[in-house]
């Protein structure tokens, strides 16, 4: 026997021997994983980070099937030559599992990686054994080895990709109620826009000098429910999800939940779906970028502040020091630069936002057109009843879309949701919740006789546009007719409409309902008592002021207070001097561009007594 033949035989034996060993290893692994998964199901689910299973018998059934499948692998493990079909099918099935789990995605990819760990080397060994058994002439063996090496490298790369996918998939907490999900659930922006939780809770301590008041994030009007610790717990409107590390990201509730007190000394109440009145989103975003630019945004300052609130392992400390803190700093600075255009426009102030210019200039990559879209945050309740009033009722202040589904999804995109993390079920859950969410009834109890008289006045002066059966309710009224500040309407351009309808970027679906209609939507009155300040830009503090001619409406008033004004409608909003910001709230100046309080003069010509009666009626909504 020649040396070459001896070598070939020993290689053949080696490849087959390794294939058999790997087959047995796979069988044993299947059985062990199956038994452990049945015995310690919740722990295994947590370790694998897969969806919670209810009932637990589902993962247990899967575990049992994994063990049963191992039984089919045994012939190939005993004698792959005698059971060639079984050997090939065993490898094929490992790959089928891998590919399927990669397609399903999410954390299920861990099951695919499990199959891949055995399937890839098994396939390579089987290939080598097959090549040798074919009796390839000398020289071909090295070709097979090269193919096997390349396949091995490819396999390592594929495994690394899968492991990365698994590690960076969000781990989202489950919420039993839709309301809790709305307040604290993820909208798919945690990985792309979330700030690592330990850094997020340390920032108010490290950058306290950048806060308007020494109240942590509450200084920006963020809402903390009773029993929650503002030092460590998320406020309403923030999700806490794990994407590699735990992260904090905003959700819909940050702009659509209001805190209200019926008196200065009353316990605050939270109303989900209402327009946030106290939240200063721009102030919050500016704080983040200012803190990132601060000399104290360093591992030496941040890590002790983080460690005072959360437990950090030595590995955590190293990761934060050399990777996460520098990375977060860079991202926050970039975010600040991306929003620099807003510094050339009037401040939003609490309860207000420019919702679409960030989308235009950021997501849609349109040029800065100098428009100002500052507007009051909007209540988002009762979406079903809107459609009962008028099918395909317009949404947003200017009715730029009339599809609830599209508005929910596009709002999530505007808040930083990305295709990779996007979840249609989450969007559908929010939509379902908002469609059925009724506005809270008014707590005001004005004089009944005045209310009756006011009802008549309402029918004569307001009902056409604001009654549930008004013929123009939930239609877009032209700016020329209503006369209110034109900037918000100008902000939404034909260019933006087309860009959004054509926007895909990583998705195989898109929008089709964005449109441009110059004007503002005539809204129905549900929840009116929580909607102040009034008009689309929040430029009129109370309902009583809205019944006055524009020249007599307050030129400057304090926004962001949460005490309900039972006499005038809306929230308590004392006059102020914009040159001197108040200790609490924000002095809103109607003389700045985009803040104008002109227009909507309906009812302003009524007598003082009639205005009181009409106001009494309006206070009941």
């Amino acid at each position, binding site marked *: 026997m020649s040396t070459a033949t001896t070598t070939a035989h020993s290689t053949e034996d080696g490849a087959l021997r390794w294939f058999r060993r790997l087959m047995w290893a796979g069988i044993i692994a299947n059985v062990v994983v199956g038994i452990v998964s049945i015995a310690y199901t919740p722990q295994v689910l947590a370790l694998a980070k897969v969806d*919670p*299973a209810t009932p637990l*018998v589902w993962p247990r*059934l899967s575990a049992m099937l994994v063990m049963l499948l191992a039984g089919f692998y*045994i012939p190939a493990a005993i004698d792959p030559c005698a*059971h060639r079909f079984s050997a090939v099918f065993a490898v094929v099935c490992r790959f089928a599992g891998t590919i399927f789990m990669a397609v399903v995605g999410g954390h299920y990819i861990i099951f695919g990686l499990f199959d891949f760990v055995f399937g890839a080397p098994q396939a390579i060994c089987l290939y080598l054994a097959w090549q040798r058994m074919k009796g390839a002439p000398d020289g071909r063996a090295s070709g097979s080895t090269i193919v096997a090496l390349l396949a091995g490298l490819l396999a390592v790369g594929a495994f690394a990709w899968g492991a990365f996918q698994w590690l960076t998939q969000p781990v989202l907490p489950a919420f039993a109620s839709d309301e809790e999900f709305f307040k604290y659930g993820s909208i798919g922006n945690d990985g792309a826009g979330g700030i690592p939780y330990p850094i997020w809770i340390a920032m108010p301590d490290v950058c306290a000098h950048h806060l308007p008041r020494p109240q942590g994030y509450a200084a920006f009007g963020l809402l903390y429910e009773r029993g929650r610790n503002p030092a460590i717990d998320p406020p309403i409107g923030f999700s806490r999800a794990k994407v590699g590390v735990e992260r904090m990201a905003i959700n819909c509730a940050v702009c659509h939940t209001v805190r209200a007190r019926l008196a200065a000394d009353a316990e605050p109440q939270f109303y989900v779906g209402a327009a946030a009145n106290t939240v200063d989103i721009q102030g919050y975003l500016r704080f983040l970028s200012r803190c990132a630019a601060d000399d104290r945004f360093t591992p030496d300052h941040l890590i002790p502040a983080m460690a005072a609130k959360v437990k950090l392992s030595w590995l955590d400390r190293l990761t934060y020091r050399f990777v996460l803190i520098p990375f977060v700093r860079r991202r926050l600075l970039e975010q600040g630069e991306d929003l620099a255009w807003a510094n050339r426009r009037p401040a939003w102030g609490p309860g207000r936002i420019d919702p679409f210019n960030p989308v235009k200039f950021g997501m849609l990559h349109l040029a800065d057109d100098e428009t100002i879209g500052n507007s009051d945050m909007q209540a988002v309740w009762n979406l079903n009843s809107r459609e009962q009033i008028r099918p395909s009722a317009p949404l947003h202040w200017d009715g730029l879309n009339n599809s609830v589904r599209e508005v929910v999804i596009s709002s999530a995109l505007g808040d930083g949701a990305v295709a990779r993390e996007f979840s249609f079920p989450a969007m559908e859950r929010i939509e379902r919740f908002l469609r059925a969410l009724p506005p809270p009834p008014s707590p005001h109890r004005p004089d009944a006789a005045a209310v009756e008289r006011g009802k008549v006045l309402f029918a004569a002066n307001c009902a056409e546009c604001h009654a549930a059966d008004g013929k123009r309710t939930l239609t877009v009224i032209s700016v020329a007719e209503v006369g209110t500040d034109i900037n918000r309407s100008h902000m939404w351009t034909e260019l933006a409409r087309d860009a959004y309808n054509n926007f895909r970027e990583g998705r195989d679906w898109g929008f089709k309902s964005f449109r441009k209609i110059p004007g503002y939507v005539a809204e129905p009155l549900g929840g009116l008592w929580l909607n102040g300040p009034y008009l689309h830009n929040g430029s009129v503090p109370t309902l009583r002021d809205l019944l006055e001619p524009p020249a007599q409406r307050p030129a400057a008033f304090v926004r962001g207070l949460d005490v309900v004004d039972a006499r005038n409608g809306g929230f308590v909003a004392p006059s102020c001097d914009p040159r001197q910001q108040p200790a609490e709230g924000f002095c809103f100046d109607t003389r700045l561009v985009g803040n104008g309080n002109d227009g909507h003069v309906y009812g302003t010509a009524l007598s003082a007594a009639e205005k009181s009666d009409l106001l009494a009626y309006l206070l009941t909504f």
Partner: protein
Amino acid sequence: MTDADALTIGWTQAQAATRRIAYRRLLGFNLIVQTAVGLIAVVVPVWLAHKADLPGPPSSGWVQLWGVMLLIMAILYLPGCIEPVHVRWPNVVGIVARFVLAVAYVRLGQGLRWFALYELAFAVALAWSYRQLLRAELMSRP
């Protein structure tokens, strides 16, 4: 070998062939149904969970996982279906697996009890048919 012996062997071989065809048809039908259920579970898990009254409701990922494992099991069964006499292991494991699955489905309850009934019926039928096949094959070899 006498003419009578030759006739007897010919008859037993024909018997074995008949049993083989019967077993393969039975198993083939079973695997087709299993593949169909697996595909439905993979493609429309929520619909299947609703229609079949599966316990839970489970997240769609778990139903898909169940479906893909049914498909993999069907693939691994194929060598046994193609050569039931020479490749006995998948057939034996498959029959045992059906009994085990039947018990598991009964324990899971709700709509899966129908699956348990199906698996049990086929486990018994396949076991009986396979035993008949092996006996006939044995008798066909003097």
